[in-house]
């Protein structure tokens, strides 16, 4: 009986993780946190080999790089008063050229940008705001953007920049501006109290300003501030938050600054007032890692590591600021995702002061076009009589939702007839005026040592976009031909737009039926090829905008699984609407990722260090049951289980590694990354770092092969 119970328990422990494993790996590392905040520990074995140490870097860097927050856009719109919009062609290399926006934008083109003045000793000094347009292209690189034409900032080009330009020079002392009377200016929507200027620097009060009423707690970030006591000359502020000792409070006189104990946060009292009539006290404080800072070129904008100052302050003339000096703030994205904007997405500066929008495409009318195998087709003559020898033939069906084929048909057929080692193709259009029967158009010797011409089908969409479908002839006899029939949809027959074409590599079976690729009903990379870049795209899961005209091949691998090619043909050239400024009324929204700083848990823990509390977090468990006790636990094994027993439990063999998600009942996930040997674990960590599992829908995979070319199969 005991043996029976033990067997039952072992079976349950073996099955349970499999049952619970459900989170797809393709979303790694997003499932290890929420709202862009990482909530995970990397648990390394208390025993580790050299490869484990090396591979640990890959896990850490991948997690650190993915610090983002997905933001839902309120939607984008055509510009009204507060922005400029241009229609930019796919392939355009620079939106800052005079063809589009030009190098900069001021109030005359974007109304809300300031052109104003401030007082310096009774004299009015003019300043204005200016947006420097970035060097950016409209790119349809499918490897980065899928079925999108994105606005892509150019590496090494002119960055997107905000500038506040001083049109006239001045001295701060002439305006009595100093520490107690700062020059207040708004930079990109944020108020700065400027205390002083230096050569290419300026010093300003910074931090978050908080107004406090007596005994009313105010929370800013992770900290809560309460004015507990005070007078006109003193305020006592209690502070709670991470690292702050219990009961901590700071006594401050106006202008005084202290570091909050247990943190490097500073608190500065700006003012405090006792209101006898109201029977209360009010105080204004500034809090932050700094309350006063000197900014120079390269310094980060407060609370944004994507925006950095670029200053030109020239004091050589004797003035603190010389005419045409400026305070610039540049957008310097630190990750690739920050460099492009897909349709219905935008990049916004701090305070949303200025935005760059990809407002979508200029074309909304498309014709669908499908090329697929078709069996048992009978071709008729003009009298609607079946043609002898062309009954029940196999070949292609080409169909559209618009009358774009030949002289205005929606459906065409190409069927094949074999005589000896020659194959003849016959083209017919399905004619609505003749009972929708395929009516004979022409025949062409297509496979033969004497074959000389291709068979072509014209595609015209409202006479504005002409494509040609080409069935390529083969100058071999049928018995030695291995890749025929190759079928191409040529791009626009207009110079400059036919830069890329698509080829479908179809194959015959013995009965002259057609399949896409060597294996029917299975997407393979070589099934579909982009001619031009020579990219094999049969396994591409998304669609692709493949030429500068804006032609789309849809859902490539999904359709290739059905041996089909599906296209969307635009009625005219597609352009991208790009807007700079602030949008007005909204249309459709979307989501995009912004890169932001967030709070980290300590990532690395030895398995022996993990507490019960930490077990309630997401865990990345590195190493197998022979080196990591937690790995042994999730696999239902005792630590250390090595050798064949370990491999059997993981379902792998020598030279393989397992990456598997174990969903916990708490909603958290344990991600096991373990190889048969340490080198195999390294292979798995490398696959994660290189994002090789992107879009993988499995919750468990086996990795083999090499770091450069890992082989990934569902476990």
């Amino acid at each position: 009986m005991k043996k029976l119970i033990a067997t039952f328990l072992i079976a349950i422990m073996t099955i349970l993780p499999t049952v619970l494993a459900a989170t797809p790996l393709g979303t790694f590392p997003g499932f290890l946190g929420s709202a862009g905040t990482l909530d995970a520990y990397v648990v390394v074995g208390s025993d580790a080999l050299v490869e484990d140490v090396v591979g640990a870097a890959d896990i850490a860097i991948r997690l650190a790089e993915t610090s983002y927050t997905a933001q839902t856009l309120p939607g984008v719109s055509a510009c009204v008063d507060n922005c400029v919009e241009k229609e930019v062609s796919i392939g355009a290399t620079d939106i800052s050229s005079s063809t589009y926006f030009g190098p900069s934008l001021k109030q005359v083109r974007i109304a809300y940008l300031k052109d104003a003045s401030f007082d310096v000793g009774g004299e009015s000094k003019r300043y204005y705001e200016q947006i420097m347009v970035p060097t950016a292209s409209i790119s349809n690189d499918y490897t980065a953007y899928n079925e999108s034409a994105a606005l892509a900032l150019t590496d090494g080009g002119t960055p997107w920049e905000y500038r506040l330009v001083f049109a006239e020079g001045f001295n701060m002392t002439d305006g009595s501006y100093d520490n107690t009377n700062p020059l207040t200016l708004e930079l990109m929507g944020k108020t700065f109290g400027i205390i002083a200027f230096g050569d290419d620097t300026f010093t300003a009060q910074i931090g978050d300003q908080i107004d406090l009423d007596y005994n009313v707690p105010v929370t800013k970030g992770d900290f809560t501030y309460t004015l507990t006591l005070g007078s006109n000359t003193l305020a006592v502020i209690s502070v709670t938050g991470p690292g702050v000792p219990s009961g901590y409070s700071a006594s401050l006189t106006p202008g005084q600054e202290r570091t909050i104990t247990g943190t490097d946060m500073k608190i500065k009292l700006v003012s405090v007032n006792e209101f006898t009539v109201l029977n209360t006290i009010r105080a204004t404080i500034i809090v932050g890692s700094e309350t006063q800072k000197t900014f120079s070129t390269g310094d980060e904008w407060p609370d944004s590591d994507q925006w950095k100052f670029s200053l030109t302050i020239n004091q050589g003339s004797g003035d603190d600021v010389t005419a045409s000096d400026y305070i610039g703030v540049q957008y310097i994205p630190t990750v690739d995702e920050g460099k492009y904007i897909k349709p219905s997405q935008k990049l916004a500066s701090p305070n949303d002061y200025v935005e760059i929008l990809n407002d979508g495409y200029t074309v909304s009318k498309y014709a669908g076009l499908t090329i697929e195998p078709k069996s048992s087709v009978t071709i008729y003559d003009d009298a609607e009589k079946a043609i002898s020898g062309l009954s029940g033939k196999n070949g292609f069906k080409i169909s559209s939702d618009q009358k774009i084929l030949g002289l205005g048909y929606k459906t065409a057929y190409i069927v094949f007839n074999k005589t000896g080692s020659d194959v003849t193709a016959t083209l017919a259009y399905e004619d609505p005026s003749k009972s929708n029967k395929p009516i004979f158009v022409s025949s062409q010797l297509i496979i033969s040592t004497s074959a000389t011409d291709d068979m072509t089908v014209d595609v015209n969409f409202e006479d504005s976009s002409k494509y040609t479908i080409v069935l390529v002839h083969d100058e071999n006899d049928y018995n030695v031909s291995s890749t025929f029939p190759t079928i191409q949809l040529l791009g626009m027959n207009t110079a400059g737009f036919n830069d890329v074409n698509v080829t479908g590599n179809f194959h015959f079976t013995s009965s002259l039926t057609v399949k896409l690729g060597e294996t029917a009903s299975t997407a393979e990379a070589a099934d579909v090829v982009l001619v031009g870049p020579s990219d094999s795209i049969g396994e591409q899961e998304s669609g692709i905008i493949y030429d500068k005209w804006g032609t789309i091949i849809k859902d490539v691998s999904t359709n290739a699984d059905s041996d089909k090619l599906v296209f969307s043909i635009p009625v005219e050239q597609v352009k991208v609407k790009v807007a700079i400024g602030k949008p007005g009324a909204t249309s459709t929204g979307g989501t995009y990722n912004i890169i932001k700083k967030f709070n980290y848990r300590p990532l690395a823990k030895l398995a022996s260090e993990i507490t019960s509390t930490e077990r309630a977090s997401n865990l990345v468990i590195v190493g197998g049951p022979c080196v990591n006790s937690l790995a042994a636990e999730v696999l239902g094994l005792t630590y250390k289980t090595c050798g064949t027993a370990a491999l059997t439990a993981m379902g792998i063999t020598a030279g393989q590694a397992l990456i598997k998600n174990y969903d916990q009942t708490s909603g958290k996930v344990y991600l096991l990354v373990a190889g048969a040997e340490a080198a195999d674990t390294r292979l798995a960590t490398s696959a994660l770092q290189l994002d090789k599992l992107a879009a993988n829908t499995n919750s468990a995979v086996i990795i083999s092969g090499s770091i450069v070319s890992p082989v990934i199969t569902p476990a």
Partner: protein
Amino acid sequence: MSIFNSKKGVAVKLNKRNVVPIVILLVILVAFFVAYRSGFLFYKPYQPLLYANISGQILKFRDDLREADKILVIPNESTIRKELFNENVNNITIVFKPNTTKENAYYEVEVIEIVRILAQTYKIKITSQNVIPVDTYENLNATAQNPVIALISPAYANGTDVRLEDHAVFIEGKDFKSFDLATIKFLMSALEISL
């Protein structure tokens, strides 16, 4: 200084009978106040300082920053920071001398801590290509453009410190906790965290 909400006065008539209790009461109050301000009252046990605010982001460390702050840095924190984080640096390599599986695990923990914090704060990308096992800590070929972070586990450590020699930063600890603290001290130097 007039204290808030203390507007109403209280009249007290003094004589020999009530002066003594009032004086005793005042002495008790003063003693109470002194004890409170000096921390003897409401004694709280020592709390490790695990967090640091780096330009608005809260980083949590594996161990006490105060303890780590005591670790010796040669020549000093700012020199180490400038050596590793300046515009001339193209690449940073982490090296370690493998030992037992237990000591290798220590390396693994410290590698993760260094990589993730430098990536998050300085956007420095150190991947497995830049983590290299070595046979010896001599002749590491560190240069100004390619400085090296050398991790020295307790088995090979001569003490606990962080030191810069010929463009290589050596981090060593005589036991795992010390090794941890030395790594944290290195990161404090890198991030300009001063207590």
